[in-house]
């Protein structure tokens, strides 16, 4: 979006329209990662069609992983996304270790959690502060918002930088980290390096708390559809890398059984596949799902912070995902500090992983939701088959259903306002469209 000399606040235009048919079209979705658009056709008071169009070109990662060595999977899959490479690396190494019958425990497991905390912080803060918050305050973009709130935006960039610093220390660099391997890492940070990082995190923690307090003051549309939330659940911790896959409708399965319950389908209007639960259809992955299914796994201070932010133990309003992302950011800072304080040097950087014929599955909680990888490898270590299901493609059907319901409930709004609210509805999910096409034009046609 181009800069403007005005404050960038959008004013309501015109009076609410009498119910009539129309088509709403957004050519290119703004403030999302990747290229997508929306087409909504309305006839009278009925929404006839909703299409979240993904025209990001297909990227064929599953195909060119074949015949690559299994040790290359974290490096190759990291290239799927520049914002969530850690998620791809973690899902891939867990899947490969599953195929080879290896579990990574102890300090290496903790360092993986720390690594992931870094990604949650930088991804969540980028979305909350730069992409989503402007919607709630009536700004066209973060640039317009920054002119009125320079101090807060500066602090958010510092908080994001802290997340980047975690990823850089553990991963070697923040974009497409190079230090991750099947079995662990190539190099471990020293205790001294971690303590230095810890000092930065202690300094920045108040900013994370301030971010949560700020977003909690936003006004949220009354919109609470009934969803099936799907997330990982671990016996003792808020999920990042491990757990069973559970849902709010009673599903409780091992990661290895994912494909017995979830399928991907082609749709004409999208280069990204759509996922559905074979039993119940569309489902909802991401921060809201993790929160609802794992609130009891938060440390008590985080539970208290959630209540102070106006959240109950259950939240089904997708517009409040910005509050949950901010809460998860605060949790990630605290979890990172815990891991750093308890870390003891001395472990080898990785465990040995010997390839064998077999299939392995891994599922970790990317910032946007569960990210599933499954590989079949041969005893020579070459990948025979790969399947990658990103969280955004799992949410596409739910996003379309949200749009349908939201337009039906707000059909009388002026066109400009309805269009913006629809874009905001999509941004509730922080979609990573380039991931979804391993993968906003909003067009609303009133007929």
């Amino acid at each position: 979006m181009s800069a403007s000399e005005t404050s960038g606040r959008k004013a309501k235009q015109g009076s609410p329209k009498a119910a009539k048919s129309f088509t709403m079209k957004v050519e290119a979705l703004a403030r999302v990662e990747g290229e997508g658009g929306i087409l909504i056709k309305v006839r009278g008071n009925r929404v006839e069609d909703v299409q979240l169009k993904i025209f990001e070109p297909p990227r064929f990662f599953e195909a060119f992983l074949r015949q690559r060595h299994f040790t290359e999977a974290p490096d190759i899959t990291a290239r799927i996304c520049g914002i969530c490479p850690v998620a791809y690396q973690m899902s891939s190494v867990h899947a490969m270790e599953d195929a080879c019958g290896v579990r990574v425990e102890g300090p290496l497991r903790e360092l993986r959690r720390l690594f992931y905390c870094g990604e949650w912080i930088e991804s969540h803060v980028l979305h909350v502060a730069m992409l989503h918050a402007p919607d709630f305050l009536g700004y066209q973009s973060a640039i317009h918002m920054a002119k009125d709130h320079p101090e807060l935006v500066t602090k958010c960039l510092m908080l994001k930088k802290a997340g980047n610093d975690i990823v850089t220390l553990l991963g070697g660099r923040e974009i497409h980290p190079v230090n991750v391997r099947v079995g662990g890492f190539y190099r471990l940070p020293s205790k001294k390096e971690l303590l230095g990082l810890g000092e930065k995190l202690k300094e920045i923690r108040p900013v994370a708390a301030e971010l949560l307090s700020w977003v909690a003051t936003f006004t949220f549309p009354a919109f609470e559809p009934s969803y099936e939330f799907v997330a990982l659940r671990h016996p003792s911790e808020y999920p990042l890398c491990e757990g069973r896959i559970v849902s709010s409708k009673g599903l409780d399965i091992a990661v290895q059984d994912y494909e017995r319950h979830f399928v991907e389908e082609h749709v004409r209007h999208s280069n990204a596949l759509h996922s559905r639960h074979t039993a119940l259809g569309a489902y909802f992955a991401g921060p809201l799902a993790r929160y609802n299914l794992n609130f009891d796994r938060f440390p008590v201070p985080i539970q208290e912070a959630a209540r102070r932010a106006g959240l109950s133990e259950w939240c089904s309003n997708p517009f409040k995902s910005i509050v949950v992302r901010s809460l998860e950011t605060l949790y990630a800072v605290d979890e990172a500090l815990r891991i750093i304080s308890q870390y003891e040097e001395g472990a080898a950087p990785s465990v040995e992983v010997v390839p064998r014929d077999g299939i392995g599955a891994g599922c970790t909680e990317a910032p946007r939701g569960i990210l599933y990888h499954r590989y079949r490898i041969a005893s020579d270590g070459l990948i025979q088959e790969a399947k990658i299901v990103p969280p955004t493609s799992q949410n596409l059907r739910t996003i379309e259903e949200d749009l349908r319901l939201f337009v039906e409930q707000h059909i009388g709004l002026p066109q400009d306002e309805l269009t913006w609210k629809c874009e905001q509805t999509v941004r509730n999910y922080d979609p990573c469209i380039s991931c979804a096409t391993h993968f906003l034009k909003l067009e609303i046609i009133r007929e």
Partner: protein
Amino acid sequence: MRDALPETRDHSGVKDRSRLVIGLGNEFRGDDAAGILAARELDPAAPLLGWVACCRGGGIELLELLELESTVILVDAAVSGKPVGSISRFEGLSPCLLADLRNCSTHSLSVQDALELARALGRLPERLVVYAIEGRRFKIGEGLSPEVRAAVQLVVIRIREEMAWRTSKTGYPESRKTSSP
């Protein structure tokens, strides 16, 4: 897959942070690698130039790299309709210039938005120079066009000259400051 050398973004021990050359782009997207390659070519000369950085993360990372009181030179691929390999050099931070710096991708904050955000936050450099190299192919996995590869070498030479002039008393020649095909 794994770089043999560390990235050129280590702040520790850098004595001179008043000059900054930033190569922007994505080395896996054809001609979009131009800026990154230019930065890598310049990197061995880093002690002379002060500091060189690669920026793959788009506008947010660019914002983090900008220093308040520095001369910043950006190198990036461009699409403007000029012949492939054309080199354009822009000086100044005028609104007109910034209006022309539109992103060709919807991935992350654009260069224009990053600079406007820096302006809103009071973080613009004192002086900004942009070297734009006209590209043709930007698909994943495509290699660099030969014309762009040649242009990268020429831009590297010009930046070295420019930074050497910056340390001289007479300054960069006026004849070099305008756009060139």
